[in-house]
């Protein structure tokens, strides 16, 4: 299914797919959610999108069924309708993937979603899927990636080999969308280093395994960088070619989780450089004889290029507090602040959620950018602080 083109055509195809799925629902397992989201912006924007509130509706689902003895099909559609931002009104197939399982191997073909990494703040090694960045500031929203993936299962872990035919461009907030920088990204005129443009075939490989308290992964990737350089003055994304090698390691030592992700990146259009995230999470369980768990998260993010880095984490520290009430409603909260150690901006974040009844959940999110006057990227977001309420129905 082609979801890169017209939304109408894609919606129709999706609807038909869903219809045919529900008609044979006996064979499918399914889960998903529908969410109503309200965002409130506390400041007047410094760009063309002037709304102080924004309403949107999203839905996601995962349908899964076995096919024959060793086959399996997963279809995961997603949609969002946004009150103001045409770019944020979009559909995607997060997954449309067939899996064939052998005894010591597995072949996955289709649109897939893969997660690599251990860190909380930023997963440097997680390079397979493009970000669906119009969905939110958190990097957890991802677009389905066309892939042929061969997984070799070994006694000591696994080897995962990828051929990635077809590139997904990053989504960005449009002219009428918030939060965003001063200028909306011109996603219609993306440029590429490779003459094959979005048809460049990327390749990747990863080995990983768990050894007592250690979980270790190492990968190599060659292809189109997921994060574009935004060219001035038109804010057109430029997708360069990159070769990236990296490791991700977690040690789980009683209440301590020690985490590290390191990548080395090289290419024609960038200075060869290292990037890393190192940190820990320490948990206090059943605090003061209650059922509440409190976790302390600290991570240091570093990019060797310093001021020349194309991301905001060139020398920053995240400090976070995680609360899990372990009550009947699974109430949780995560408060965090990311501080630029080179005298730059602070980003304050808050996330909280609580189940309501059996099928609903209330989810809050807040972002505040502060002290960002000297930071060319984050200063653009200083007027974009927002509070987001979401009520989700789950099935």
């Amino acid at each position, binding site marked *: 299914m082609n979801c890169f083109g017209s939304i109408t055509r894609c919606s129709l195809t999706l609807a038909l797919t869903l219809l045919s799925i529900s008609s044979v629902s006996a064979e499918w397992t399914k889960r998903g959610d529908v969410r109503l989201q309200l965002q409130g912006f506390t400041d007047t924007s410094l760009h063309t999108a002037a709304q102080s509130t924004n309403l949107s509706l999203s839905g996601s689902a995962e349908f899964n069924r076995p096919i024959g003895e060793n086959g399996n099909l997963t279809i995961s559609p997603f949609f969002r309708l946004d009150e103001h931002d045409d770019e944020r009104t979009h559909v995607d197939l997060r997954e449309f993937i067939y899996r064939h399982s052998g005894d010591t191997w597995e072949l996955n073909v289709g649109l897939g979603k893969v997660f690599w990494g251990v860190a909380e703040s930023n997963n440097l090694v997680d390079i397979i899927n493009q970000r669906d960045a119009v969905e939110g500031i958190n990097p*957890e929203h991802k677009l389905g990636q066309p892939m042929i993936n061969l997984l070799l299962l070994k006694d000591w872990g696994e080897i995962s080999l990828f051929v990635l035919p077809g590139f997904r461009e990053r989504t960005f907030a449009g002219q009428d969308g918030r939060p965003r920088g001063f200028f909306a990204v011109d996603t219609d005129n993306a440029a590429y280093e490779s003459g094959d443009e979005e048809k460049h075939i990327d390749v990747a490989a990863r080995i990983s395994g768990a050894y*007592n308290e250690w979980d270790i992964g190492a990968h190599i990737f060659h292809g189109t960088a997921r994060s574009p350089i935004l060219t001035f003055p038109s804010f057109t994304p430029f997708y360069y070619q990159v070769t990236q090698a990296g490791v991700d390691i977690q040690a789980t030592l*009683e209440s301590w989780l020690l985490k590290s992700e390191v990548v080395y990146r090289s290419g024609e259009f960038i200075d060869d450089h290292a990037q890393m995230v190192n940190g820990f999470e320490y948990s206090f*369980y*059943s605090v003061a004889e209650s059922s509440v*768990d409190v976790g302390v998260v600290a991570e240091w993010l570093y990019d060797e290029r310093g001021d020349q880095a194309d991301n905001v984490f060139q020398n920053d520290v995240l400090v976070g507090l995680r609360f899990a009430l372990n009550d009947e409603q699974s109430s949780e909260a995560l408060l965090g602040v990311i501080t630029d150690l080179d005298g730059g901006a602070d980003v304050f974040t808050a996330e909280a959620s609580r189940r309501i009844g059996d099928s609903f959940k209330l989810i809050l999110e807040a972002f505040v950018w502060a002290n960002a006057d000297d930071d060319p990227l984050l200063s653009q977001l200083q007027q974009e602080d927002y509070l987001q309420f979401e009520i989700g129905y789950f099935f």
Partner: protein
Amino acid sequence: MKLAYPTALSMALIMGAALPVQAQTPEELGLEISKQVNEQNDGFGDSTANMTMTLINRSGKKSVRRMRSRTLEVSNDGDKSMTIFDEPADVKGTASLTYSHAVEADEQWLFLPALKRVKRISSKNKTGAFMGSEFAFEDISSQEVEKYTYKHLGEEELDGIPVHKIEAYPAYKYSGYTRLVNYVDKERLIGLKVEYYDRKDKLLKTLVLKDYEHHDSKHWRPGRMEMVNEQTGKSTILEFSDYAFGTGLKDKDFSSNALKKLR
């Protein structure tokens, strides 16, 4: 929970041979019976079951969780197990994988389906509430003899059934309990009741195990477990159904890759 036993007849024979009471201290006798209870659980290979957990608060309001479990027996070590969550809907598809160990820390991973992320998590949290219920993680983890020291307190009758009363002291230093009092059916050697005493040695919870079934004439399994928190008045009922043994699960079915594929 590992609670499985041979037939009553062979049990009576084992017990007859194993209980020269006068020759043993209460500690030795407590250990001996607990070993027998546990040993009889061996040899099940693997098992699967469906679970329904009903949380009941003080005012009687109920909320329900549904899960499916898979267990693989590992000789000379704790079991490997997986739990897949079906309800409530917001955690549907979430699954956990645990390699339990007798003495060292367990290894534990959690699969978050929306992110496709497998997260290694700390297994130190023994005292925490499982899914907001009255069952702590240490109550539902693989029960190994080495996790406690024992003392035989005596014999009495529980609802007309002759039982051994055995006190168990957690070896794990982060346990939420000072001691457990186990009531073990003398004839069938199955646990019928457990009393949990908190760190201040006050009675915290009472667990009653009932509706035992004898699967494949080999494995005793409770159909229903009722945990009452004596301090808060809250309770949790855990019901088991569709037990199956020897289903052909293998070691590779308990890997982080297998965890991602569960539905």
